[in-house]
Every structure is written in structure tokens, then in C-alpha cells.
């Protein structure tokens, strides 16, 4: 479970990226986070993963402060930029992540094989990440985030650059992860993905939450498409 209470984040003392944001992300569901470019999606995710501190308010992950090491151990994070440690080989990156998240020896080999097969990456694990395409880099970062079977899985624009098959596989894995009682939170601006995949969603614009709730409720209340609703909400924000 992720909880943000009255969170404000200001960059450089001037730019207010988040303004009194409160959000509650429950276990066992896929929570989508929608917003136009520069709305505050990545800032919110950085707060959840302990990358940055809020200027006011609190961020708790499974009841622990997001900045704490114990909280970070619970999270699997997929950043929006997959260009990480490009000079490491795929397997070295996965092994590094496994060491960081203290994955047991017996488990990690099996996990690498399993994830490698699901993302069709097994034959490329001996190569440097530098030689991977954007999509392959995205896959290796996703695999790294899942090495320790995190309780909370946070993904920032995860579908970018993925081929249709991998995108399908990722969505399937997100569903499986949520069904096991874990938390899955992801940002996107692809409305079709949000519409088909999310149980709940929040819409953010200019650092404020415009809507947070069930996807089904939203569909029931509105007599129009999600795209139209999204445009109306963000334009009138």
C-alpha cells in the first residue's frame, strides 16, 4: 500500500511540482496514474521510491517512510529512462540488482531464467546493455525490478519502446502481480492502456490530483470516452 498525505514538492525554491497531493494506492489492484507532460507524474513516483524528499507532507509505503531502506527493499522500480549501467552485461546488471535487494542464491538463478524466458532475453544476457535496443533496455530494467519479487511494483511509463508481444507480456505480469495481493502503480499517457489495464486511476495536472478512484465508477458516471474526459479535466484544471 502506498499513501501520500498532503505532499508538496517545490524544485529550486520556485517551481511547485506537486501541490498538496493526497493519494492512497491499495494492495491487490493495478493503479494507473495519468497526466499530461510535466503534470507531476514522475515527481510523484520519485517521492514514492525515496529518490526525492517532499517539502511537506508524508509518503508511506507499506506503512514505512519512503526514504527508509526497509521501504526501498519492498519496492521494484522501473524508471522512465532505461539507459542505466550501459557498460554492464545484462546478467551482471541482474546480479547487481539481486545483490542490492539481497535475493537468496538459490532463488536468483531460477528467477533470471524465468524472467529471461518471459521477455525473450535469455540469449542476450551475456551482452552489454549498451548493445541493446531501447526496448531490450526497457526489458532488462523491468527484469531487474522484479528480481526480488517486490511487494510494491512502481513503473514510470513502462510501455515506451516495448514491442507488442513484450507489452502484452508486461501487462499480463502486472495483472498476475496484483492478483497475488501486491501493489502495482504505473504512470502513462496512453489512455487505452489505462482504460484496459487499471482497476483504479488518478489524473494529475499541474501538480494537483483532479480525480482519484475506481475506473469502473468513472466509466459509469461519464457518458463519454476516457480520452474526452481526460482532455476536459486537464484543460479545465
Amino acid at each position, binding site marked *: 500500500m502506498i499513501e501520500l498525505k498532503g505532499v508538496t514538492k517545490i524544485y529550486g525554491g520556485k517551481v511547485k511540482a506537486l501541490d498538496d497531493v493526497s493519494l492512497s494506492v491499495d494492495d491487490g489492484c493495478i493503479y494507473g496514474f495519468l497526466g499530461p507532460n510535466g503534470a507531476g507524474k514522475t515527481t510523484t513516483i520519485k517521492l514514492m*521510491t525515496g*529518490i*526525492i524528499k517532499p517539502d511537506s507532507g508524508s509518503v508511506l509505503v507499506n506503512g514505512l517512510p519512503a526514504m527508509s531502506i526497509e521501504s526501498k527493499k519492498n519496492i521494484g522500480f522501473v524508471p522512465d529512462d532505461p539507459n542505466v549501467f550501459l557498460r554492464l552485461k545484462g546478467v*551482471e546488471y541482474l*546480479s547487481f540488482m539481486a*545483490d542490492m535487494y*539481497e535475493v537468496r542464491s538459490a532463488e536468483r*538463478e531460477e528467477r*533470471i531464467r524465468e524472467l529471461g524466458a518471459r521477455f525473450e532475453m535469455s540469449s542476450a544476457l551475456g551482452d*552489454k546493455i549498451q548493445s541493446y535496443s531501447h526496448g531490450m533496455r526497457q526489458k532488462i530494467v523491468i527484469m531487474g525490478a522484479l528480481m526480488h519479487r517486490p511487494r510494491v511494483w512502481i513503473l514510470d511509463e513502462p510501455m515506451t519502446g516495448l514491442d507488442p508481444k513484450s507489452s502484452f507480456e508486461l501487462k499480463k505480469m502486472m495483472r498476475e502481480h496484483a492478483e497475488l495481493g501486491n501493489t502495482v502503480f504505473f504512470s502513462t499517457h496512453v489512455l487505452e492502456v489505462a482504460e484496459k489495464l487499471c482497476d483504479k486511476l488518478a489524473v494529475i495536472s499541474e501538480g494537483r490530483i483532479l480525480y482519484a478512484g475506481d475506473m469502473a465508477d468513472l466509466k459509469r458516471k461519464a457518458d463519454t470516452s476516457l480520452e474526452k474526459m481526460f482532455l476536459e479535466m486537464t484543460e479545465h484544471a
Partner: protein
Amino acid sequence: MRKIFILAKTLLKGGGAFSMSKKRRTKYLIPLVLGLSFAVFGVMMVMLTFEIFDALDSVNQADIILPLVFGATCIMVFIFGVFYVVSTMYHAKDIELLASLPIRPYQMLSAKFITLVVYEYIMEAFILVPVMVAFGVKSGVGVTYIVYCIILLAITPIIALSIASVLVMVVMRFTSFGKNKQVFKFVGSILVVGIAIGLNIGLQALTGGNRSEEQLVQMIESGTSLVSTVSNVFPGIIFASRALINSASISGVINLALFVLCSAGGIAAFLGVGQLVYTKGVAGVTESSAKRKGVSDLGKEAARISATLSYIRKEFRLLVRSPIAFLNCVMMNLIWPAILVVMMFTSGSLEMVKTLLVTMDGGLMIAILVGMSAFVSSSNATASTAISREGKQLYVTKYIPLDMSKQLIAKILTGYFLSVIGIVIIVIVGIVLGMNVGVALIALVLSLLVSAVVAVAGTLIDVSHPKLNWMNEQQAIKQNVNVLLHMLVGLLFGAVAVVPVLFASMTMVVTILYLIAVFGGILIVLVWRVRGRAAARMLDMDA
């Protein structure tokens, strides 16, 4: 032409070569420290030139100073140029982007060349400017001398830089024949650096290295001149000094014109060779082999180790696999001891060093070795770019569940382990040359202590104002003021190790106790700071 200058301006801005911290506390501190260092060095150079001028003037040979200094500047420009050319023209990430722009290869090469000339002005500021000033003051010159100086300062780097660029381009072209271009280009980079150092050492051997003032006068009188050697290596450079020496007469204008012509020739040669070999040499520089390979022994590759050890292993892998990091962080530990050793052998001071090693007081010898270790440790850029190298991926250090102070310690240890290589070489050379083994071992242990202090200090410097906004690793490592600051700190620690021991004539036991107390104390304070404020500062950074 306009496109070339716009591109050069953009590259210089993007490079951030002269960008400083925007934080209030450090905004003025760094320029102040650098300005002071330059001022002290400049005054020292001016004073030294005055002395040499007087000595040579007595034998009517004062005019030899200018060609000597132009030669020295060319050598330095050439050596640094080789490093710059390899990293700017072959390993920079902007090459792919530039290749996609509607510009011709010669425009890109020219723009890159201009940026390199600008970087070389820093070198000139340290060597050429003070000597020009001193020479001008001593020989009482007019306005034309000043005008010529400004013109010469602007174009002096061109010839040496052209030679360096042509050499690099030819070597890099050749190395692209291999199956694994990455490996070959990597080896090529190291080869070029090797040639540059070899040339420097060779020149030193040819010219007799550090001779005394009397020997220098003798050498000039007997006609075995350094000038002719340097002039042969860098054609046309002699015209630069002749232009200044004869600045009051028509001969000055002619020589200046000849030097401008030679420099233009250098540019023409650079562009001509560039047109022929550059595009093929740079093609595929960022490519890797397309054949995919799986993992043969997954159990071994994925074996569990502690998080801190794994972090250190990751740091080593990234350092060794990046050509720029490898040259500046790993190779540098071998280059400095190698230069010191070869200088000893080629300058004829070997016998003197051997005698000193046997006769010198043990305490002072330990202090000198510890001082040298402090400098050698600070000369590798590992610790002082530990945070800067993360660049825009700094956020990774924040979300992985490893305590920030442990991450900083892992980064420090990486720099420390690399420094140990240089220190061990220095001590081994000392023993080979006849140093008492017991004294050498004590010096080794104390050097390991001072090296730890230097590594921690380097990382603390980088934590306080890391350079994170970079396009290529060269900007993070070579154009990072923290590296220079770290070297100054290394020199300072070196002075702290040697000067009090020398002036207080400490016995060996007192020297050992002094070094342990001072550097042990500093280490405790700095490590305490790493675990406290530095780690907190890292977590506070907006990544």
C-alpha cells in the same frame, strides 16, 4: 564558416568546460581557489623566468628562453591534445547526433578542433603567458610585442594540436579494421596515449632532462640545442619566438606571417587527413557486436556477494569498460609512477637518487614517499568524479536499498584500491634502487594511510558540488574542476607530510608518529563526515 562557429560555440557551451557551481557557497569558492592557484603559479613562473633570463643574459643567450617555452608549450599541448582528441572526436556521445545534422564532416571536425584549441588556452595560461610577461618586462618591449603576444597566444596550439589530431586519426582509422571495434578502438586510444608519453620521455632524454643552469648554458654554447630538436618535431614553432624577439623590426612581421602560414598548413593537414580517414575511423565507434550471446555459467555469473562488494565490483566494471574513465582513473595510477621512474633514468639523476636512498635520513625518506603517494593518489580521477560519473542516473543511487554512506564508502574504496597500485610501484622502485626494506615497508603502510585520506577527500569534494549535467563522460571526468581541486588537495597533503619533517629535522620515530597522528586524525574526521553530512547531502539532492 558561420555554421562552424555556431557549432563550436554550442559544443563549448554544452561541454560546460568553464561552468561552475551555481550554489551560493561554492559559486565563488572554486574560481577563487583556481584563481589563487594560477596567480601563485604565474608569479613563480615569472620569478623563475627572471632568474633564467639573468643567467642566460650573462652569456648573451637570453633569447633562447622564448623558443624553449614555445617548445614546452607545444609538447604539453600535444600530450593533452592526444587525450582531448581521442575523447572529443571518437568517444563523445554527441558524434552520432552531429552526424545526423545537415553539416559536412569538415564543418564538424573544424568545430571540434576549435573547442580543443580553446581548451588548450588553459595550458597556455599556465606556461606561456607568465614567460611572455616576464620576458617582455626584462627586455623592455613595445606595443608590437604585446600585439604579437596576443596573436601568438591565439594560434600557438594549432600546430601541436594538428599533429596530435592527425596521429590520432590515423591510428584510429587503422584500429577500425578489427572484428571487435570497441576493443580495437579501446586499445588504439591507449596506444596513442602511450606514444604521446613515449615522445615526451624521448624528447626529455634527447635534451638531457633537468640539467643545472650551468649545464644548460654549456649545452646552448656547444650547439646541442633543445630548440632545434623541438623545432624538428613541431615545424614552424621557431617563427613564433623569432616574431617576438624581433618584434621591433620588419623581421618580426615576416616571422609572424610565416608562423601564421605554418599554423594554416597545420589546419589544412588536419582537415585533409580528416577528410580521408576520420569518417571511416569514427564509424561504428559506439557500435557493439550484433551477435547475441547467452550466459554459459549462470550459477557463477549470478553468485551472491555482499551488497557493498557488489557495488565496488560494479564501479570497477564501469571504470574499466569506459575508455575515458579507464585512461583517467585506472591508467593514471600507472602513468605518474612511470613518468617519475623514466624521468629518473633519462635525466641522469639515477645515481643521485640511489645515493640519496642510501644516505638520506629514514624519517625524511618516509615523509617524501608518503608525500609522493598523496600526490599520485590524487592524480587519478576516480574518487573526485565518483558522484559526477553517475550523471543523470544519480537517482539509481537513491532508490536501491543500500545505505547511502555504504555507497559512498564503496565509491571511496574503489578509488583507494586503484591508488594502491601506484603506491606499490613507487615503493617497489625504491627497494630496487637500494632503499632499506624496513623503511620502505613503513613508508608503504603510511602511504596506504595517506592514500585513504586523499580518496575520502576526493569523494567529499565531488559530493559537495558534483557535475551531473553532462552529455559525455569526458565532460564528467576531464572537464570537471573537482579533479583539479583534488590534485591541489593531494599536493597540500604532500606538503603536510614533507615540510614539517624537513624543517623540524624529525627523527624516524617522531616522523612515523607525526604522520600517523596527522593523517589518522584527518581520516577519522573525514570518514565521520562521509557517514554524516555527505550521505545526508546525497539524499537531499534532487535527482
